[in-house]
């Protein structure tokens, strides 16, 4: 078994000068490319004993006697691999700012208010078909220090494991129709517009809950795995 080569031209390059922090944090030497070994083909496993059933409901998982402020939404989708196979029972974790664009983090100093009823993180395991769902509040845009007037589009950070440590992925989900997407140096660190499109979740009215909350759909694709045709590994395939 092996993994498909990661298409490094599809991902953002390490050095994206318009995203200034990448300048001092991007390796300059060529990476060492190699086929995955047992160390990368394996990966941590998680089970239902690791998480609690309500961990995927950000409207209630930190509420202190009231609901958080903001637009109520469901974010749902599937985790698939490049072969269109569902990735079941894998851990999906998200984190985000509140409706005002403020993070619950001791290092965030933005002037928008902390929401006492909103933590801003959630986690879940995909089901047997690779499906996941979160209920949350639509995050607000916020300013950040890069150029003097940069604003992040509304986004949710998403972390996914897959079954192999080399499938590990962190990305950000954006919202259909957000005019700030086109102005964001972090978004534009991705060179191919089709790749950016893959991070923009469309509104999914069919999954909205009438008189309660809207829904957005975000499918996630992890690296594909294959059994090679002429496997010669002594330990078998």
């Amino acid at each position, binding site marked *: 078994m092996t993994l498909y080569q990661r298409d490094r031209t599809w*991902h953002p*390059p*390490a050095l994206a000068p318009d995203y200034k922090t990448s300048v001092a944090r991007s390796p300059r030497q060529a990476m060492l490319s190699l086929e995955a070994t047992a160390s990368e083909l394996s990966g941590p496993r*998680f089970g239902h004993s690791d998480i609690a059933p309500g961990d995927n409901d950000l409207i209630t998982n930190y509420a202190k006697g009231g609901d958080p402020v903001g637009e109520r939404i469901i974010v749902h989708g599937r985790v698939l*691999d490049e072969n269109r196979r569902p990735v079941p029972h894998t851990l999906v974790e998200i984190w985000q700012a509140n409706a005002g664009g403020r993070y619950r983090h001791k290092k965030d100093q933005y002037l928008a208010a902390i929401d006492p009823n909103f933590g801003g993180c959630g986690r879940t395991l995909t089901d047997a078909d690779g499906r996941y769902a979160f209920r949350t509040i639509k995050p607000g845009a916020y300013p950040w220090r890069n150029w003097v007037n940069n604003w992040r589009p509304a986004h949710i950070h998403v972390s996914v494991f897959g079954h192999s440590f080399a499938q590990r992925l962190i990305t950000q989900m954006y919202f259909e129709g957000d005019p700030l997407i086109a102005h964001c140096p972090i978004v534009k660190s991705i060179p191919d517009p089709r790749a950016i499109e*893959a991070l923009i979740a469309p509104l999914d009215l069919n999954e909205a809950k009438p008189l309660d909350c809207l829904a957005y759909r975000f499918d996630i694709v992890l690296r594909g795995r294959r059994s090679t045709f002429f496997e010669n590994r002594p330990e078998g395939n």
Partner: protein
Amino acid sequence: MDYLKETPSQTAGPYVHIGLAPAAAGFDIYEHELGFDPVSEDVPGERITVTGRVIDGMGAPVKDVLIEVWQADASGRYADGAEGFRGWFRVVPDFETGVFTLNTIRPGANGRQAPHLSLWLVARGINVGLQTRMYFPDADNSADPVLNLIEQPHRRATLIATGGKGSYDFDIHLQGEKETVFLDV
């Protein structure tokens, strides 16, 4: 061809701790945070401590990094379930100094691979999580297939910790003369 493309990566940003280590971000939300359990007493193997820093191209510590560690058990086997020694940790440095500490067990050799920890680094300014490895200075690394793929001996040394007797130091350099070898794997 009917393949899908992998979802493109985006930086984990400065507040990655909210999602993956909320206690470090400054709040208490989950009954059980993942990746921070100490190794339980019944797990066989030599207890080791690894300390280090991730250092940027200006020589400054990357204080907002989050590192995931994946490793074999003392016999060289990788866990395939959620029970027993999972072999996976999350490491967050001290936000003031950038120094991280990992308490784990020494992994065994896996096939021809010398004992090592697999590391995955994410932070603000890192657009795609960086994969690397830490090997041990007091192990026989001579036949390791990954170390032997690195042509320049001084670069091979960037993957080998210093110290010994269960206590190791491992700094990861993102740039410069001591730039760590990162893996495209």
